[in-house]
């Protein structure tokens, strides 16, 4: 077995066997699944049905609230004190006291135990609606049912379609594309820095523990550096693949063992709440159209391109940063010193992250340029890919990235060779460039 594969296998095994690797590999998917499922779960379970006693001094609101999955209204007779006592006794979750007089729009909501977060907003929404209906009726003498139907018909339905050079239009979900772009870009950012940092830390450890002194007499520094970088890359790919598989497994298990009862949404109730008019059919039809557009946009989403590009850009982006980080790590004796050298290298990615998170569109000229510049392209290009990127731009970007990788490895190897056995000096960028000529 050649020396470099001996190095790769040590770098790989020593990391994969660590407890922290196993923990983080298992923990991340659990966190991701929880983040995905928690809101759904909370919406369905934690926010249980709240029973509201309504007390209206004007009696106008009596029997006007409609019950939903979350809210159940009752209109018991009695004084406020009496109702409050019953609330304390647990007969209801809150008492809504709508104040009388000209202040019909003001109300107090009494509760004994903390109500769900959305309770106030949900009640206010219904109150607004009831008061709006009253105004329509009293001031404009309109038939409310008719008004609602008209309003339903006036519902706009915009589909987002992207046209290509051939004039073919395809449904796209702009929001989905944008979110997928941001998520992929951020993942690249996280992974590249995480693993490049691992490389740097391990170089610094080997240098400050003087392990390098022993190793350089048997292996060429370049071999050692590449072995380490490749070893850590394999760790990254392994971890990533395991995490994807684990997330998929978890989601599958959740679907299997916790079917509709747990994850079933409140959607049907909401639809039925607006039902009951002659114009209903039209409304439902437009809903269907929405759904259809979503599905076709979903299928037109470039999953495979995104996945392939994610791996390509992650891998080469990582290789570039890892080699630079290895070079920088070899030039310093401790992590504190390395930070100031690392900063200028990491700025391009940080800049790209900011450009993406402030919401520049994927078609923005700046993002387009960033998707060509090798140090920023791993993030910027992934941000663009879901919204569609011409093939030639992709190839140019990857080509530039590969060329930069070779340049960076050459640069890093030069610094690494000198840096490894240089101790006790605080090295700046100027000195590093001097080493290139050694």
């Amino acid at each position, binding site marked *: 077995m050649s*020396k470099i594969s*001996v190095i790769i296998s040590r770098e790989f095994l*020593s990391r994969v066997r660590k407890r922290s690797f196993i923990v983080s590999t298992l923990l991340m998917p659990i966190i991701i699944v929880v983040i995905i499922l928690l809101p759904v779960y909370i919406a369905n379970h934690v926010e249980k049905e709240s029973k509201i006693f309504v007390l209206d001094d004007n009696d106008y609101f009596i029997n006007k609230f409609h019950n939903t999955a979350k809210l159940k209204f009752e209109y018991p007779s009695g004084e406020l004190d009496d109702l409050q006592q019953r609330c304390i006794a647990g007969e209801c979750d809150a008492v809504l006291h709508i104040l009388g007089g000209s202040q019909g729009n003001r109300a107090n909501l009494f509760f004994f135990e903390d109500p769900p977060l959305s309770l106030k907003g949900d009640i206010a929404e219904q109150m607004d609606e009831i008061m709006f209906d009253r105004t329509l009726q009293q001031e404009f003498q309109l038939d409310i049912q008719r008004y609602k139907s008209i309003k339903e018909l006036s519902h706009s339905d915009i589909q987002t379609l992207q046209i290509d050079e051939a004039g073919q239009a395809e449904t796209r979900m702009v929001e989905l594309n944008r979110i997928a772009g941001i998520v992929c870009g951020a993942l690249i950012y996280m992974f590249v820095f995480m693993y490049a940092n691992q490389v740097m830390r391990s170089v610094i450890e080997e240098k400050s*523990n*003087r392990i390098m*002194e*022993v190793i350089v007499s*048997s*292996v060429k520094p370049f071999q050692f550096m590449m072995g380490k970088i490749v070893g850590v890359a394999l760790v990254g790919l392994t971890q990533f693949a395991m995490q994807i598989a684990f997330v998929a497994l978890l989601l599958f298990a959740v679907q299997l063992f916790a079917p509709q009862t747990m994850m079933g949404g409140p959607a049907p109730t909401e639809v039925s709440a607006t039902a009951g008019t002659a114009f209903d059919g039209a409304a439902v039809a437009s809903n269907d159209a929405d759904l259809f557009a979503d599905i076709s946009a979903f299928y037109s989403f470039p999953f495979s391109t995104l996945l392939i590009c994610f791996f390509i850009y992650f891998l080469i982006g990582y290789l570039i940063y890892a080699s630079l980080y290895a070079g920088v790590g070899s030039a310093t004796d401790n992590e504190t010193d390395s930070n100031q050298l690392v900063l200028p290298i990491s700025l391009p990615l940080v800049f790209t992250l900011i450009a993406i998170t402030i919401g520049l569109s994927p078609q923005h000229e700046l993002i387009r340029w960033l998707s060509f510049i090798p140090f920023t392209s791993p993030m910027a290009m992934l941000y663009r890919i879901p919204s569609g990127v011409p093939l030639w731009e992709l190839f140019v970007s990857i080509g530039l990235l590969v060329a930069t990788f070779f340049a960076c490895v050459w640069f890093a190897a030069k610094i690494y060779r000198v840096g490894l056995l240089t101790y006790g000096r605080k090295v700046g960028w100027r000195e590093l460039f001097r080493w290139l000529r050694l």
Partner: protein
Amino acid sequence: MNIIETHDVTKRFGSHTALNRLSLSIRQGSIFGLLGPNGAGKTTLIRILTCINVADSGSVLFQGHPITPADVARIGYLPEERGLYKKMKVSEQVIYFARLRGMEKKDAEKSLRAWFEKFQIESWWDRRVEELSKGMQQKVQFISTVVHRPDFLIFDEPFSGFDPINAEQLKQEIRELKRDGSTIILSTHNMASVEEICDDIALINHGELLLNGAVGTVRRQFRQNKFRISVEGAFDTSTPLPDWARIISTDSDKHATTLVLQLSDDHGANDLLRLFIEQYRIADFGEILPSMNDVFIQAVQSNSQKHQQS
């Protein structure tokens, strides 16, 4: 036959000249002491021999041919500053180093087992390096230097961190390696051990060779015409001595008196014996050669003065 020859090897780091036209040779099968004050260029020379650094000019021959990476694989190098992966198991670590030097995993494991048995440290096999004391780690490092059975060994300060018992064991091992045919470079500041185990030495300072040769020859080169003579009974201090002999110290017990005398350059051992043989029964006599320690200090100081003057 020389295993290593350097010819006019020069190495500069920026404006600093680490080695200046250094030429020396190391006999195959000898223990060679590489001496010199801190910063003299010893480590630089060793790094050039192990191809870690490349000389700016001059040549390094290994068994007569210019040194190649294949030759370096036959070198075992124990650096002065040496470390181990703290989290790795002792055995895994040494096997890793052995494989980096081109050994097969099985061979490395077998050879390592033998060394562990020899040092009676089999129980360390599965322990992590961080659990070992400094001396224990030094032992592991020594083993990792010799585990691939190199025929040329370079030990840079091998005794540091060892207690006297372990240091003695290490000396035994070095002698044994020599018996098995290995050539050994020993770079150390421990002059007593140089006298004890080295055949030849080279003393370098400011990147230049000051002294080179067999230990006995070098010491004789620095002889100061000092003699030790023991006589039976008491020594009469009132006896006038000729002006070419001066007593440096006397030491007497019930039976004998031992004197250390400094003679002037134009007189020798025979003159001294002649002087004493008339009046005393001589019990013991010998020349006092300077220790390597004295040689080191004297040579380096006079060289440094020269450097300052120039």
